[in-house]
């Protein structure tokens, strides 16, 4: 080797996969775009404004908090954009703009950066921000505009879930469902799929969300374990609770934030278990909590609360479901691990 040529020495491996954190976040953003367009199409231009404000304020808070904490800037990894998008998706279109900014502050500064930034937060930023807003400004957060009527002074209407929660489950569920559908209180199945219903900006169009979810699964960004076990658990509960009424179950799955929550919020890397068994336990736990809140709680919707509660249980789940490594020698007394943390 000639004298001045200095070689780099580092630990193996000397080649790396092309995937990066920014790439993963970009994939998540791409997967959320159809649902964002659907939200704007259903609720009008104000939805776009809410989305834009949430994204810009999240990125800004990320930038400022890193600056104040004298840490390297992290806006390049695009995770703040994802948080902003998801937060906007969880807000009703009529929400005052300043509340969007407060929500972004809670999500980025309090939940994410105060715990160390990306990967270190124990709760999902967007979900926690939504819950903070929900308990602080209950009426603004539950004033859902009817589809097509954008703006602050428009007609507010009940979401499909609040209609469903009025159903007397001890009575004949299918006749009550029929009555709701005939009266037009519940949107048609087609409208449920394509998002022509009251609800938060991003949760209404199930088709767009599932499209994005399929993209994420194909790209290997998320696994089906959490959303699969989550949705199946809710479906199982709803089937049993309604005396096996298929329509009721489908409306429960499509009617609230379940699709958005299961595919995009519960799968958040930082706040869900990393091993597959843990993911399934996490999903089932979310499903049980959501079902219990929807069926027995006073709230019509429980996706956010259940994901937040399971976020907190994640370290425990990971500990209990730790996979046996290769060649692990079992001790004579094998411990039985109980599934379902709830």
């Amino acid at each position: 080797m000639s004298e001045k040529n200095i070689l780099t020495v580092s630990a193996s491996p000397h080649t790396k996969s092309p995937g990066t954190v920014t790439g993963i976040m970009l994939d998540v953003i791409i997967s959320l775009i159809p649902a964002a367009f659907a939200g704007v199409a259903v609720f009008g231009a104000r939805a776009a404004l809410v989305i834009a404000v949430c994204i810009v304020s999240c990125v800004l808070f990320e930038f400022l908090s890193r600056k104040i904490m004298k840490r390297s800037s992290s806006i390049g990894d695009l995770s703040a954009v994802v948080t902003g998008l998801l937060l906007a998706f969880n807000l009703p279109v009529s929400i005052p703009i300043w509340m969007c900014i407060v929500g972004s502050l809670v999500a980025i500064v309090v939940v994410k950066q105060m715990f160390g930034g990306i990967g270190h937060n124990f709760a999902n930023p967007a979900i926690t921000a939504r819950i903070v807003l929900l308990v602080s400004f209950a009426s603004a957060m539950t004033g859902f505009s009817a589809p097509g009527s954008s703006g602050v002074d428009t007609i507010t209407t009940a979401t499909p879930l609040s209609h469903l929660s009025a159903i007397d489950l001890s009575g004949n569920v299918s006749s009550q469902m029929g009555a709701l559908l005939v009266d037009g209180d519940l949107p048609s199945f087609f409208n449920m799929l394509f998002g022509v219903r009251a609800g938060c900006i991003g949760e209404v169009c199930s088709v767009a969300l599932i499209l994005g979810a399929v993209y994420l699964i194909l790209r290997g960004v998320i696994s089906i374990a959490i959303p699969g076990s989550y949705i199946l658990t809710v479906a199982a509960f709803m089937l049993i609770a309604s005396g096996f009424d298929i329509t009721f179950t489908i409306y429960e799955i499509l009617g609230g934030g379940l699709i958005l929550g299961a595919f995009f919020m519960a799968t958040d890397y930082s706040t869900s278990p990393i091993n597959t068994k843990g993911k399934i336990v996490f999903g089932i736990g979310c499903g049980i909590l959501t079902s219990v809140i929807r069926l027995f709680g006073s709230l019509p919707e429980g996706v956010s609360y259940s994901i937040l509660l399971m976020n907190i249980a994640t370290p425990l789940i990971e500990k209990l479901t730790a996979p046996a490594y290769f060649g692990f020698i079992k001790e004579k007394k094998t411990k039985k691990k109980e599934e379902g943390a709830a």
Partner: protein
Amino acid sequence: MGKIKPDAILKAVRKGKGGILVAHNKITAEKETVRMPDPEIVTLPMLQHIGAPCTPTVKKGDYVAIGQVVGDSDKYVSAPIHASVSGKVIAVQDVKLANGKMAPAVTIESDGERKLFEGIEPPKVTNKGELVKAIRASGLVGLGGAGFPSHVKLNTPEDKDIDTLIVNAAECEPYITVDYRECIENSWNIMSGVFALQELLGFKKVIIAVEDNKPEAIKILKEIADSDIDHGNAVRLMTLKSRYPQGAEKMMVLSATGRKVPEGGLPSDVGCVVMNVASVAFVARYLKTGIPLTSRSVTVSGNCIVNPMNVRVPVGTELQKIIDFCGGFTEQPYKILSGGPMMGTAVTGTDVPLLKSNNAILAFSKNGARIKPERDCIRCGRCHAACPMSLIPTQIEKYASLGDAEALKKLGTSVCMECGSCAYSCPAGKPLVQHMRLAKDVMRKAGIK
């Protein structure tokens, strides 16, 4: 809710059993191995294997011939070192090795005559004991990269029922093609090596395992395995999916036999012996000629090499000489590796000698090396999904930084074979293998195995 069988769901959800897909980059695969002319000087370090280092048995000024012992040890886990050229010993002193360690070495100036040592004759081998003795005398160490003395491997404990010999021709590391060329160019040696080992050690089954990205090698080996010379019909060719680290010993045993080597155990604990294909071919050659291990094939490749190829070189040749033989560098390399890109060692310079266990010299430019800036872990779990041992590298990293040796043991740190799958797949560019090594060091210091 119906009864859920967690295992069935896990199988459906989790793709494969760890491991990663890497670009093969086997650019030297179709080039015939070229014999490099002997260098003027060879340096033979006394530590070219796992185990006890040898002590030089010659002194400065001695004349040595090819195949003459220049270093040996009285320890069992060790392998003698033989002169790889004929000529005069010009120095016996400490030299730097590719991995940065210092070791005593015998430096020989070649007289260019390639004279074979007089005492060389084919060994008389009729039983296991004689075979083990002969293999030790041959200086053979695992040619696949680890450099474990082969006689130790072949001297299988009598109390264990060893029924299977696995010939490892997987060669799952990118770039490296020496084993592939061995299969094509020396298929008969491989086969006679297989039969010799089978006869002497009494294996019931011999499995030759090749990855499915080497159709040419599969064809040739299959012809021989199916031919009449395999009377007992014990030899079987097995095509494995190309998935790194398929060639790792434990993965090999699992893929070939479905058996899992227990923690802290060896393949012999589950009745297997795994040998690299080039080592098996060497055994056949040695039994025929009695010439010890003095030269080996090495893949010289990477995007900085003018003429990438496989070269047969005397052990102890300076890396730079071998690179020069392949046309030198196209541009100033950023990283030079001894070994493959996944598990090889980055060298500080090319002034180090080639060891028995070196199977590749790779030179990369900055673009070829693909570097990622390190970021915070986002807990995506790709390291865990990629780990063939089902470890959780991020947790091990955490406990290593806390110095908690007990927790590291519980997490199975010691089964890590540093294959690099975790660090390869990490989107945050974390040097996880480095952390795994630090974790093992924490355990070592705490005296926990």
